[in-house]
């Protein structure tokens, strides 16, 4: 037994890669995830820089150039029922759609994590109170809940954000609570307390640190659902108001043109489909890249 002799005492040969570098490396080796990441990134970048891309005015219509088919010179993706350029409207529409599709998940991530971690760590009556209230929201299908809240609040972007956030807080809270109560009973929480950490330090450092990545992964899987719901609200006329370009709304207004040019009226739907599919596959990729623990 050689206890005293260190086997090697040389310092680390190269700087150790952090956890996130490892995740990124594994993600980069997954072609499907990388493709989806590229598509999502392109959509987001296009949406952000839409006003500077030299596109046609998405609001300006033309009575004589209505419902031009895909491939018309000057209007590569055709024009809609008011003669507005489809390409410009789709790209500008991405701004609102992605914004309303992603922000509620971000808000819900913060609110739900806080509620869930507190419920899971404190337990007892507070847990019962929070989780039973959450259960009430779970009683409704998410689409129905979003429509009901939006309908009550009235149309508009802010109201859509509020209603979608309310829809996504319960599932995130539930996941956060489940993960937290699992972590809470582990030895290292006791060990941290045994070294004199206060309850706040234990939550902040040891609980949040271990709980955040599963909640985060779950939240990313909700973004595609949220986008579809947001588009659905606009489609039903209780989301974004008409002059604004938004994919769900565009799908609604082009509905009547489906007999004239089905391809054209399917375009916003294609955008919604591609975006949510890519978000879903990407979150799956992130999930498997992050789950590697050994």
């Amino acid at each position, binding site marked *: 037994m050689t*206890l005293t002799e*260190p086997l090697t005492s040389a*310092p680390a040969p190269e700087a150790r890669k952090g956890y996130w570098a490892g995740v990124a490396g594994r993600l980069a080796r997954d072609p499907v995830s990388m493709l989806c990441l590229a598509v999502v990134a392109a959509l987001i970048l296009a949406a952000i820089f839409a006003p500077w891309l030299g596109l046609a005015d998405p609001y300006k219509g033309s009575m004589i150039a209505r419902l031009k088919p895909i491939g018309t010179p000057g209007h590569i993706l055709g024009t809609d029922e008011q003669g507005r350029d489809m390409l410009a409207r789709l790209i500008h529409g991405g701004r609102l759609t992605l914004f309303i599709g992603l922000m509620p998940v971000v808000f819900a991530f913060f609110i739900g994590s806080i509620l869930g971690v507190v419920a899971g760590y404190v337990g007892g009556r507070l847990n019962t109170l929070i989780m039973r209230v959450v259960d009430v929201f779970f009683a409704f299908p998410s689409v129905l809940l979003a429509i009901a809240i939006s309908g009550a609040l009235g149309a508009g972007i802010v109201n859509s954000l509020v209603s979608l956030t309310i829809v996504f807080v319960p599932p995130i809270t539930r996941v956060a609570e489940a993960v937290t109560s699992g972590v809470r009973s582990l030895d290292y929480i006791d060990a941290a307390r*045994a070294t004199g950490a206060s309850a706040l330090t234990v939550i902040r*450092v040891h609980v949040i640190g271990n709980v955040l990545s599963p909640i985060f992964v779950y939240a990313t899987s909700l973004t595609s659902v949220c986008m579809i719901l947001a588009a659905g609200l606009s489609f039903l006329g209780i989301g974004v108001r008409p002059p604004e370009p938004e994919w769900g709304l565009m799908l609604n207004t082009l509905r009547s043109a489906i007999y004239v040019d089905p391809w054209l009226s399917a375009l916003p739907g294609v955008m919604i489909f591609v975006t949510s599919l890519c978000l879903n596959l990407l979150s799956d990729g992130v999930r498997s890249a992050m789950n590697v623990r050994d």
Partner: protein
Amino acid sequence: MTDKLLEIDHLTVRFKGARTIHAINDLSLSLGEGETLALLGESGSGKSVTLKALLRLLPPKRTEIEGDIRVGGTDILRLSGRSLQRYRGGDVSMVFQEPALALDPVYTVGAQIAETVMRHKGVSRSEAMEVALDMLKRVKIPSPERRLQNYPHELSGGMRQRVMIALALACRPRLLLADEPTTALDATVQIQILLLLRELQKEFGMGVIFVTHDIGVAVEISERIAVMYAGQIVEEGTTREIIKDPRHPYTRGLLAANLHDVARGERLAAIPGAPPALETRPASCSFAPRCALAGPDCRAGLPPVVTPAPRRRVACLRADEAVPAE
């Protein structure tokens, strides 16, 4: 005999719930500065509960604690808030049984040791990392500089336990509680960890309570042994006294039930029966149902505590009976 570092007086711990569990019943124990005591007993005899009570880690809502626990004169059952946090990890710290579970998987071991040091000593992060490095050297981890940056899952079981010990000793506690720190390790690593703990104990001069169910381990590490059964200490004495002259029938049974000197094919010596359920507070000797020597008087009331020598005690009516034959 040195000053008392730890004094436990008539400690009783009950867990309430659907059924009440009488985990610890009227336990008294004392430990001097720099003494090493092994708390020996089988699963469910209350060893770990005793340690957790010492650190006040038991869930307060479901636990009833009576009695007195004093560490260096301070009544720790009255501590709260800041003073409790200073006490935990500062005066007393603990090494857990399963190092894989007791280290937080998302932080490097260096960060975890430094966190504790910063909390108790109020030093900067870089100074705390220096302390962490020094501690890793003291627990003899190979290439400590590199290990600081490792996550717990990157280390072997033995190394994790060394890290755990480094973490527990980083703030120089006066009392170290070790909850079966070698049980989860394989035999060769076990002895290394034991030797390390013994060495560090001498170096730092701290008191150690070492919980184990392995008599061999207890003999290896401790000066004194207290044998626990069903939430009570049934026998206490120096290691030599317990091994050479066990008085309680349970201790004798434990000593007889080892695997050495057993011929192949021979039945192993064992204590018949199973430990009692702890749902009621014992009114008579808890060991009587399994005891070969038990008579009606054993079942009539709690056994007296006999003290054949200073700091030696046996909770048995038959303690003085000459029963050496083996």
